[in-house]
């Protein structure tokens, strides 16, 4: 009994516990700074979950509205234009939803700028592609304080605050000389000090994610695993940077300035530079130019010979040449041919825009391989399906969807099929589920590389200078 008590006491009084007490009580303001910092980060982490929750609810509301609208609008329009299939399909808007995953609420990315619902008529596509939702300009200005923002921008600040003076503070307060002489394995001891702080920061991050799972209803799957892996990798990256800076054995104030400088460069200066570079390197023709080309392609046809227009249309869709011409209130065949040619004649510009955006996406990903901060942002967006890649794939899907609806509608219009024979409530809102594969190696490789680099540099430097005062 006495023996087990002694062992318990020994465990409780372990060195790492004392180091923890020392850490949590430390600082000029008796540890208040450390505790306030932790509380602040946790609080803003929780707030970020509610920002995400609000986003998810808005998305959900938007989707519900669209589904409901389509269900009521289609039969209404059909009743109104029951004798004119061409006119009906002039008005009908078919909607596609870019599926929002629960995880998207943790990294909203570009989802607040790009619409998650595209509603298209079977008329010319290009003019409709960039009809965006109304977005809240104030929101765009501030950006979202979502989890990815808290992780990418704020966590490093806390890591810096926790570690910038890990050794220098002991030197400046005079405890280091006794530590250095007493310690059996000084580098191991420094490692323990870092691990202690790492454990505290990880606990905060994991707590926020653990709260997010029930609050946002995130499924426990491989994607969440990679999302967590990215977050852990990012935190480890910053710890390795701080470890390297500590190994330079400078004064606390120098370390602080150096680390804040690194923060500024990695999170503000370099991303802005990369953005400028990519914008200049891959100039994107204005979406408006494509719209103009499409409009011109279509409007010119009003003054062009009908036969020439139809011939071009048949060249694109030979299958409709055989469909016999029937009498109808408007010459819809010619009208939709004009619309179609608007798209066909702006296809060059549209393709160019698509290609440039693709190149931008690829270029920023390759550059990000060498910038863990940018990489984290891109990967979280990719995993949450809220990045540019997702947007491009959604646009592609919208084009395919539009083409499908056209090919379904053309024969009905050209034969002026009876409107009421069609069951309009069967046209459900389509949903795009982004299943683009994500390779764990491409997600985590960058972190492994940079963590090894900075931890290695720090270790090498410490081996030379660890005992020097």
């Amino acid at each position, binding site marked *: 009994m006495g023996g087990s008590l002694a062992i318990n006491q020994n465990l409780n009084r*372990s*060195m790492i516990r004392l180091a923890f007490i*020392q850490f949590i009580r430390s600082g000029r303001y*008796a540890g208040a700074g450390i505790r306030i910092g932790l509380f602040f980060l946790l609080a803003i982490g929780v707030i970020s979950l509610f920002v995400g929750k609000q986003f998810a609810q808005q998305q959900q509301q938007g989707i519900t509205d669209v589904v409901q609208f389509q269900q009521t609008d289609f039969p209404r329009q059909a009743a109104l234009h029951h004798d004119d299939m061409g006119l009906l399909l002039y008005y009908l808007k078919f909607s596609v939803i870019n599926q929002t995953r629960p995880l998207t609420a943790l990294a909203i990315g570009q989802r607040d700028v790009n619409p998650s619902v595209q509603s298209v008529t079977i008329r010319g596509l290009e003019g409709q592609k960039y009809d965006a939702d109304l977005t809240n300009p104030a929101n765009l200005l501030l950006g979202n304080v979502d989890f990815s923002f808290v992780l990418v921008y704020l966590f490093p600040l806390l890591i810096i605050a926790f570690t910038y003076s890990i050794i220098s503070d002991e030197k400046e307060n*005079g405890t280091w*000389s006794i530590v250095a*002489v*007493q310690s*059996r394995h000084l580098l191991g001891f420094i490692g323990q000090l870092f691990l202690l702080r790492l454990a505290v920061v990880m606990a905060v991050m994991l707590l926020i994610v653990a709260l997010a799972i029930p609050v946002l209803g995130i499924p426990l799957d491989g994607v969440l695993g990679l999302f967590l892996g990215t977050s852990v990798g990012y935190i480890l990256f910053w710890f390795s940077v701080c470890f390297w800076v500590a190994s330079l054995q400078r004064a606390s104030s120098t370390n602080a300035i150096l680390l804040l400088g690194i923060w500024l460069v990695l999170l503000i200066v370099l991303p802005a530079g990369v953005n400028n570079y990519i914008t200049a390197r891959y100039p994107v023709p204005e979406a408006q130019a494509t719209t103009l080309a499409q409009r011109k392609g279509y409007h010119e046809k009003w003054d062009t010979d009908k036969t020439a227009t139809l011939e071009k249309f048949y060249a694109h869709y030979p299958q409709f040449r055989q469909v016999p011409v029937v009498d109808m209130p408007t010459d819809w065949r010619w009208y939709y041919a004009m619309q179609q040619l608007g798209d066909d004649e702006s296809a060059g510009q549209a393709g160019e825009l698509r290609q440039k955006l693709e190149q931008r996406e690829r270029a920023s990903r390759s550059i990000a391989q060498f910038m863990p901060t940018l990489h984290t942002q891109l990967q979280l967006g990719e995993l949450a399906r809220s990045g540019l890649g997702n947007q491009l794939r959604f646009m592609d899907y919208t084009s395919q969807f539009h083409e499908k609806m056209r090919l379904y509608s053309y024969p009905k219009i050209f034969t002026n099929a009876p409107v009421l024979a069609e069951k309009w409530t069967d046209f459900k809102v389509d949903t795009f589920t982004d299943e683009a594969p994500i390779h764990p190696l491409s997600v985590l490789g960058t972190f492994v590389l940079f963590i090894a680099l900075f931890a290695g540099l720090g270790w090498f430097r410490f081996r030379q200078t660890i005992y020097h005062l």
Partner: protein
Amino acid sequence: MLQAIELTKQYVPGQPPSLDALNLTVQPGEIYCLLGQNGAGKTTTINLFLGFLPPTSGQALINGLNVAEYPQETKKFLAYLPETVMLYPNLTGLENLDFFAQLAGFRHTPDELHSLLSRAGLQTEAHGKRVGTYSKGMRQKVGIAIALAKQAKALLLDEPTSGLDPKASNEFSEILTGLAQSGTAILMATHDIFRAREVGTRIGIMRAGHLVESLSASDLTANELEAIYLQTV
């Protein structure tokens, strides 16, 4: 146990070295006291043995190992008491001792820790108080307890009794004598001629980086030592 061979330290190239070709040996059981004015090279000598400074030339050996080559291995044999012991102010005296003893790989029971602190002369009621409330002398005593807890073969002391009252200084001298009797090699830099003569087995007098005298303490009275010291420096 402690040996300096032509040990030299020049902080600024071109300037005269702060320590010039020091040769010195401290055997187990010996207490070697270094006397000398400020800037004579006493602290530099101790910092070279601690590996806190790289030597310009020569070697500092501990138990036959070169400190510059084996900074970590040589620490195993060493305990150190600086002029001003600084501890973690937000831990108690007992917790500080426990922490530093564990750092050296020793796990003591609370009873053992209390007894070490008492042996170093710290009053019992202070053991559980945060070090932030301690006086310099009290911190010095915790420092002594930390050095004792390591049971090191060599002890390096840099003016350890500064800030201690005469009674505490006297108790400290007794502790040192006891350690020497059990075979510890002790190198102590000090300004206290009287105490050096009391506890020292050998006394070295330094001036401008040179060891100018090395005397056997038992051959001298305190007054004779003071006379020699004043002539030398």
